[in-house]
């Protein structure tokens, strides 16, 4: 909170994170990602500090969460994050908005902007929609997931979780398995983890693998057993029910047979490998309960916890300029 250089990066103030919005990991340099993770640590500590988990630095600021696509946990996480920092948090759900009446996305954005939001958190079902809004409004915009494109705070919270468990990313083997094609979580994580130095493997049936995925500098696998060999981190993705009706994969049970994470399969990973899942889980499909609930190896609840910390860090950093924090003007 001063204009002294950051101990980790040696950079001063805004140089640590010279972005107005957080639309995707693709726009971030590795040191900018590390800066956000470092910033999140203090909030992880605060959130564990007992009953009064509060910091008033966003007091008087209005945080608008505009969710054009249904969400429970991400919306809640952003709401908790904003409130712990003292912001006035309001939520707009698509189901109860004029979006249903045919208002265009731009008109909705302009309306929210006219209400003088100080920061907007947007989720939308269309890739690129958040960028479109960011270009149109006067306040910082945080992408809470746009189509299949990006979900940057999920990647950041995953990175923070991994860093706290594993110490660093260098040489770490991370296996991401599931519906890579339709997943913004997978895209943001591929960008984030490779930028931080991890070796990333992605595993999916051929029908759920994005074209040219190797251009992310990840190694694609169709065989889950091979993909698990020697992995330090196993990240399972949720598979949507509508993908399992024969359009992309024949059935849930066939998917489970090939790609379900079971204790047997997990033996191929390193003995200290951790298990991650962005939630909500389809227990018995991509992951079995004994693995998901393994107290030693499952980091799934910690991901949720780090989600609040990372979102607090993002809300704080993105509003520093408007709040006149020294070095961030």
């Amino acid at each position, binding site marked *: 909170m001063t204009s002294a250089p950051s101990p980790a990066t040696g950079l001063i103030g805004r140089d640590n994170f010279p972005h107005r919005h957080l639309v995707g990991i693709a726009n971030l340099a590795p040191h900018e990602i590390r800066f956000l993770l470092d910033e999140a640590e203090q909030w992880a500590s605060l959130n564990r500090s007992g009953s009064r988990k509060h910091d008033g630095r966003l007091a008087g600021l209005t945080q608008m969460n505009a969710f054009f696509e249904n969400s429970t946990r991400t919306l809640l996480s952003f709401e908790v994050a904003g409130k712990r920092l003292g912001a006035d948090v309001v939520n707009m759900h698509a189901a109860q908005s004029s979006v249903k009446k045919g208002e265009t996305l731009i008109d909705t954005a302009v309306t929210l902007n006219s209400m003088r939001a100080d920061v907007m958190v947007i989720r939308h079902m269309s890739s690129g929609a958040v960028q479109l809004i960011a270009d149109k409004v006067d306040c910082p915009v945080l992408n809470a997931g746009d189509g299949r494109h990006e979900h940057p705070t999920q990647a950041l919270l995953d990175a923070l979780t991994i860093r706290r468990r594993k110490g660093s990313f260098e040489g770490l083997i991370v296996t991401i398995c599931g519906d890579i094609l339709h997943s913004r979580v997978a895209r943001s994580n591929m960008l984030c983890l490779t930028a931080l130095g991890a070796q990333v493997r992605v595993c999916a049936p051929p029908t759920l693998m994005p*074209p040219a995925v190797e251009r992310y500098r990840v190694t694609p696998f169709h065989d889950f057993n091979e993909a698990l060999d020697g992995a330090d981190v196993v990240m399972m993705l949720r598979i949507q029910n509508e993908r399992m009706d024969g359009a992309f994969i024949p059935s849930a049970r066939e998917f489970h047979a090939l790609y379900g994470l079971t204790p047997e399969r997990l033996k191929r990973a390193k003995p200290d490998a951790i298990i991650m899942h962005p939630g909500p889980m389809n227990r018995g499909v991509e992951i079995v309960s004994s693995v998901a609930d393994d107290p030693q190896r499952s980091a799934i609840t910690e991901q949720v916890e780090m989600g609040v910390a990372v979102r607090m860090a993002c809300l704080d950093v993105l509003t520093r300029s408007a709040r006149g924090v020294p070095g961030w003007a």
Partner: protein
Amino acid sequence: MGLTAIINARLCDPSAGALSEGTLLVEGERIAAIGAVDVPSGAEVIDARGMIVAPGIIDLGVFRTDKPAFHFAGITRAALMPDQSPVLDEPGLIQHAARAGKPDFWVHPLGAATRGLEGRELAEMALMKAAGARAIATGRSWIADSGVMLRVLRYASALDRVVITHGEDGGMTANAVATDGETASRLGLQSAPSCAEAIAIARDIALAREAGARLHVRLVTTAAGFALIRTAKAEGLKVTCGTSPSYLFLNDAAVSDFRTFARLSPPLRDERDRLATIEAVADGTVDVLCSGHDPRGPEDKRLPFADAAPGIAGAETLLPLALNLVREGKISETRMMALLAANPAAILGLDAGRLAVDAPADLILIDPDKPWIVDSAKMAAAAGNTPFDKLPVQGRARMIMKGGVIR
């Protein structure tokens, strides 16, 4: 009857090998003489020094009748796609659409192949022909049912009408807004492999062979697609194809940052296919260069990429971008005008697109070197949705004559 003499011009006859110097004499609605002609007394004289005199551009496949844009572009005739509201699938609508441009330019409405362009029931092709439809078109989409397409081809063939098809397999490209590749994956856009084009073209060629019908693939954009067209032509089938400057000068990287002005149908392809498209224009595989003119305002374009309408306001950039190919030595001026006028006229069966005695005096004067900058905010078109915004270009139409009258 009025006489006009265009003197000191470089004459661009699409059927000739090169430009020739000379005078062109217009009498009434037609070209009266060409070459070393004496200017008759009383003729109005236009000194075209430095200019190229060419047939007016015939734009095969526009989505909107856009008079200011066509005037800027040097387009004297445009074939209007049936994808209108309502769909051009019955004779009254064809007649109405044909009246839109006259006298400044002529609109040739293309009759829908199937009712509502839904790909199921044959539309009234004979009645539409009688009402002025010069060709039958499947519109923006491919007819998925091969049985229906075969019947369309047979029926149209008996009426001596070419069938203009869209070359993308409908199943593979359903909901896709981009071509498979790194850009689409990184942006999280639903995409389809480029072979969706070859699959569609291969089937339609097979059906055209079966029906003995004329087939024109409006936009071919991939190396595999051009290979099929080449083979069909070598076999002697009556198969022709077109492409548009977007596929010559842009690849799929142009959609980075979710630029909806670069959302096209078919979608932009990779660099290899872009180079193959230039090659196919240069080697004669491509018969037609068209703009696909489809002006779209912010209500259609300022949307998330997948929700935005495809298409560009392409009329104004058609000629300067075609001239790029001339300047790069890929094609001659006369070949350019074959692509822009003579070939589309032949495909549609129009008495136009020629620089010959007795041909209609549909002419343009082209200033081939005139530099200008494409500016989406200042276009003549009904909307400025161009992926070529801020591009410096050279060459534009300076004068348009339709039916012997300067417009």
